[in-house]
């Protein structure tokens, strides 16, 4: 069953910064992009490195360990579309960020 959980205040998510949260213990990465927030699994598909320690250039998220690059909008690994990070629907309501765990 889907679970919707509040994970952060929008004001605490500056544009271009990476933020790790742990709803129900799951490692989730939040990325704010304008009026949207993207939520992805906070573990690189390669060797499990925490992506929140990586860097962001526009929509491109780069893993800190071995530079694997992902699109935060859909989780796709840029060098092989068959590989992608799990993504979670994220919503903003009354200045708070909610993530649907599916």
């Amino acid at each position, binding site marked *: 069953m889907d679970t919707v959980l509040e994970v952060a205040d929008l004001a605490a998510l500056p544009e271009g910064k990476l933020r790790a949260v742990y709803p129900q213990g799951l490692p989730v990465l939040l990325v704010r992009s304008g009026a949207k927030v993207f939520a992805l699994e906070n573990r690189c*598909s390669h060797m499990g490195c925490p992506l929140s320690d990586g860097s962001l250039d526009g929509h491109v998220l780069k893993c800190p360990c071995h530079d694997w690059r992902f699109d935060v909008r859909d989780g796709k690994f840029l060098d092989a579309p068959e*590989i992608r990070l799990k993504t979670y629907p994220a919503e903003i309501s009354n200045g708070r960020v909610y993530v649907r765990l599916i």
Partner: protein
Amino acid sequence: MSFETRKKALRFLFGPTVDKLGYKFTPNEEDADFLLEQEAAIEAETGIPYCPCQARSKDRAANMRMVCPCIPFHRGHYDAMRRCWCGLFVHKDVTDPDGLRQLPEPGWRKLEVGGAGRHPR
């Protein structure tokens, strides 16, 4: 020093990734064990499981293209060989990896007279 535990961990980490790319560990268990042993040793020394058959340099971007599994960064080349360069991974349909050849990377020009030309890119 024994790397048995780390070799198992690398198998566990890389298996699902290469599966999505259409590859599997080579069925030649002796070769797979040797190559994983080298990667675990390289990782113990450098912190990164680089390909044991490619040269690292001071260029980080180039080095990152040879961290195992490096298939995504050499896709056309490896698909043509039906294996990765070091041979740790082969296409899923390969049953006899010993029959596969190592081919130079396309785009690198083969010269029979040394020093007579340059890489065309």
